[in-house]
């Protein structure tokens, strides 16, 4: 690293502090049912599988915890023939 790079480097501690604050705010409330995502995944899949044939390996559930808003992203791939049959 050049000496110039050293001086212009951003402080990392504020990032650490903010990441911890967001993370711990969630962990403190969710301790006890920490497998929330897994549980949601199973229940959502059960509902969808009632109507459409799905491949359980092609399902993605993602949780993104933000400071103000958290998002739950469910990505389910529906095979073409199953889709055609349902339609």
């Amino acid at each position, binding site marked *: 690293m050049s000496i110039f790079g050293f001086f212009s480097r951003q*402080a990392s501690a504020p990032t650490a*502090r903010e990441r*911890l*604050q967001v993370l711990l705010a969630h962990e403190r409330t969710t*301790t006890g049912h920490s497998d929330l995502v897994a549980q949601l995944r199973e229940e959502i899949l059960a509902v969808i599988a009632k109507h459409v044939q799905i491949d359980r390996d092609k399902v993605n559930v993602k949780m993104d915890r933000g400071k103000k808003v958290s998002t739950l992203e469910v990505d389910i791939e529906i095979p073409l023939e199953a889709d055609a049959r349902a339609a």
Partner: protein
Amino acid sequence: MAKVVVVTSGKGGVGKTTSTAALGAALAQKGEKTVVVDFDVGLRNLDLVMGAERRVVYDLVNVIQGDAKLPQALIRDKRLETLHLLPASQTRDKDNLTAEGVEKVIAELRKSFDWIICDSPAGIERGATLAMRHADIAVVVTNPEVSSVRDSDRIIGLLDAKTEKAERGDRVEKHLLLTRYDAGRAERGDMLKVDDVLEILSIPLLGIIPESMDVLRASNLGSPVTLADDRSAPALAYFDAARRLSGETVPVTVPGEKRGLFGKIFGRRAA
């Protein structure tokens, strides 16, 4: 009345054993009858840090299983007659620690000591929960680093739920001991500051132990840092922490914050 202290952290390698030895010795140096108890069954190290590894005959598990009496297992420190060690077993595993057994040992220790300092194993499993079970006071050892702070938060949650005091509706007194702190790096914005960690964990501060060569030197020699060099920066910080533990009000100073011209020029960079 005897006080039972657990030195805990969740994360490994943050300085629990070093701090147990140093705080135990610091209290004993004040003339208080102190015993340090190793709860890390299978991976004991407090004996080594205290320089008593060649004097271990019986251990905590022997006492719990009735193979030895408590006084036979206690090792008196060669330098301080007020300091004692109850080692953990190296050969058995932690399943040999029973809740009833630990309770009996702690009750017996309470009769003859002013301070019982329990060195918890890392993690949140049986060994760690048994070490904290009977505590009146918890010293949460934390490094100014994200994974250590997160694990400390978890341990604080356990202290409020899984201790005897918590189950009675009472509270375990919790204190933060910030170890391996580097004031220069914190000033430059490269390390969490004392106030950051205090704000996140929101428990009172027991002390700030600076990152120092003296700590490794002391463990190399098999001596608590407060005995190895009682004028060194970490020793002074541990002495202050021990005084606060006994209820004295000692103003907090951040070790190493006095900066020279060089430090002032470079310290400003963070702002």
